[in-house]
């Protein structure tokens, strides 16, 4: 039995018919085509599916889509401004913070939430903010550096 819900993603409202047990991750990826949101474990342990819901980073694989009704959802697809990378995305590119790229969307969104709340974070605060986002390629050093650079350039 499907129900018709409205989800507001990156400022636009989408109407979608879903079964009530579908996660936000499934609906974003499979119903709405926001495949920039990655599925790394589907059990809330890797952080690859991080999106922002009302400004807070959440694991979309652990949230039911119906619980996001009425919320502002932000995905990686909404970060670039008319196709141009945001300063945070640009810092990730320029400072070598991206290797395989699978953790990058979630990582960038966790960083964005941090910088919104705390525009001048310490290195420790940056590390804490992304500690729920696993990366197997980079060793995090260049990611932390990119977030620092983005903070310094006033994102």
């Amino acid at each position: 039995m499907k129900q018709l819900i409205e989800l507001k993603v990156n400022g636009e409202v989408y109407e979608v018919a879903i079964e009530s047990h579908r996660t936000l991750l499934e609906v974003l990826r499979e119903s709405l085509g926001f495949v920039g949101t990655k599925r790394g474990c589907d059990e809330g342990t890797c952080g690859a599916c991080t999106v922002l819901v009302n400004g807070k980073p959440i694991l979309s694989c652990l949230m039911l889509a119906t619980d996001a009704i009425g919320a502002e959802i932000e995905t990686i697809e909404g970060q670039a401004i008319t196709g141009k990378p945001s300063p945070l995305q640009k810092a990730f590119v320029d400072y070598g913070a991206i290797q395989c790229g699978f953790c990058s969307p979630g990582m960038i969104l966790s960083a964005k939430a941090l910088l919104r709340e705390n525009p001048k974070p310490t290195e420790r605060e940056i590390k804490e903010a992304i500690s729920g986002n696993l990366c197997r390629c980079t060793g995090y050093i260049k990611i932390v550096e990119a977030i620092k650079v983005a903070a310094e350039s006033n994102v």
Partner: protein
Amino acid sequence: MGNEYSVVGKRLPRIDAHGKALGQMQYIEDIVLPRMLCGKILRSPLPHAKILNIDTSKAERLPGVKGIVTGKGIPRKTYGIVPKAHDEYALAIDKVRYIGDDVAAVAAVDEDTAEEALSLIKVDYEPLPAVFDPEEAIKPGAPLIHEEYGSNISAKILKNFGDIDKGFAEADYVREDRFYHQAVNHAPLEPHGAIALYDARGKFTVWSSTQIPFFMRRNLAKTLDVPESDVRVIKPTVGGGFGQKLDLFAKDFGAAWLARQTGRPVKIIYNREEVFTCTRQRHPMVIYVKTGIKKDGTIVAQHCRIYADGGAYNSTAPLIITLSAYFMMIPYMIRNLRFEGHHVYTNKPVGGAMRGHGIPQVRFGCESSLDMLAEEAGIDPVALRLKNALRANEPHPAQYKIYTCGLSEAIEKTAESMQWKDRYGKLPKGHGIGIAASAYPSGLNNMSHIGAGAIVKIQQDDGSVTLLSGAADIGQGAESMLAQIAAEVLGVTLQEMRVLAADTELTPLDSGTFGSGVTFRAGNAARLAALDARKQIADVVADKLEVSPDDLVFRDKRVFVQGSSDKGMSWNEAIKAVQYADKPMPIVGRGFYHVDAVEPTTLLTQEGNFSPAYSFMAQGAEVKVDLETGQVKVLKVTAGHDCGFALNPISVEGQLEGSVAGGAGQAIYEDIDWDEGRIRNTNFLDYKMLTSLEMPDVENIEVITNDPYGPFGAKEAGEGTIIPTAACITNAVYNATGVRIKELPITPEKILKGLEELKAKAAAKA
């Protein structure tokens, strides 16, 4: 060095980084085809059992199920990595050999239906006795996992140099120890997946998260029993591999088979538990090391006997134990040496290639052994390593050809930066430093695919360049590296470059991301292809300028005469000149690089060179150990690294930092937890890797040696760096606590137990 090049050696962003930052790159799960079905694999719940019967009738009747295949319906064709050691069916036939072994594949209209179908398949098993420990598995009477071998030792190798008995007789200090390196999962963030399409002409197109598209094609054709020309493999963007995405898996075969059976595209994506259980892992290994040194520190003999736990199938065996052997003979000069390697079957998930492939285990044993002897002999560990470090162009006991070697410089600079002399043995209890070293090949000489091709195509008068390469970028930055090489040769910028890679139908043959040969092979192929294209342009431009083509320089989007940069033209004008000279368009440059492997070493020969170049690395760790809780904190890893020449320093640093994260994880956290062949920790909560909070500082010390055969002097850069990390951390933990860890990982329990033992020993002495 700074002005020699315009593109290589520069800290340039990767060509795929923007797409990845914007979430635009297509990974396997992101690809959707019309009318695509969802596939799932049914897996064995038992570690060892005969399959008596499989009844799929109930599952077939479930609405929405479109296709089912079991081992009964497929060709009896085995696959694997090393041709003579193929031992695995695409789906289990006759029996299952580990918990998670592939039993059947289904395709249904959606995931829920596919999962329900799996639950409706009834498999009758006859359980067989199982064995989980490699040293148990080789005892007489142990259950046989592959009866046809008559033993659970699936591969054995023996290497012998010099006179081992004489060597030990000359030694002033000798010791023998047993070490154990645990099983480790590669844990790429992207789970494995495949999509297959079968067309009206009877051709398969398979998208797969693979590191070796050409190997995948070969194994798919073999298991499907169709000609290779019927299979096209395309690698989409891949979210990390580290060796785990080398092999064919049931998802690849199952998607292809079911696509043909159903006439619809089929997608199979593994979940995280399947990645942990049903793909590959670093071989757990038992390592016996006996080393003899003289009073002055010279290593006079070393004997190493290993048992690699391969799990249920060979995968990369016997290559894995061969690499273990090769890297006993390097990075130090050891004239009397013996290596006995065994690859042993157990009823466990399968061991496979993982970053370092068989070498981190052996070097952990050897580097620990050296530190223990150094202490006995009263020699500084750094001095001991420098004393025995190999040098370039020195005759090597195994006939390795080492043209460049920055090992001594790497050790010296690492020690200097760590203030070794002032700090070693002088830090407060609980605080320590340690060192270890290794080497790594830049591709292998003795594998079947030792060549790589490349095509450079310049089609438009806007001067844009397309590079076609079979190399597989899995996140390490291969495509960007190739683009930088071609751009440097042609004198254009990365902006002009587009790379089309890893499509078996469109791109030239390549050995894939394997054995760290991409930079050397595919990089040289790209360089040669670009040179071929450049020559065609140079001939026309030289005619126009009335100079010799050899006098032309291609740089910064200009073609000009050496020494008089105003005499020339822009890159775009040069391309137009070729076009207006009525030369055939597009300009196509072709390159092929083949390792010079006239007499490579093999499993059977004792001597021979096995790689075109070797990179060298020394690493030093600084740790703090909480003496109350036994917890280890890795503060910093200092790494001296000879990769020849860094084609992109950001990428090389990134590889090193990622290696340290992996190596430190393997030293102190990562451990597959077994219970009678069942993995207990198949998720990231229970299988702990480093997060941003545990990551140590990393200092990268570049040692430039400019290899004469590497592209622009470059050698392997991203794999060997993981090898010394766990070993130097273990040595640092000893330095901090006096506890010698011989079984990884270094858990708080082991530290506390070791401290207790030390206390008891001291009390007994008193």
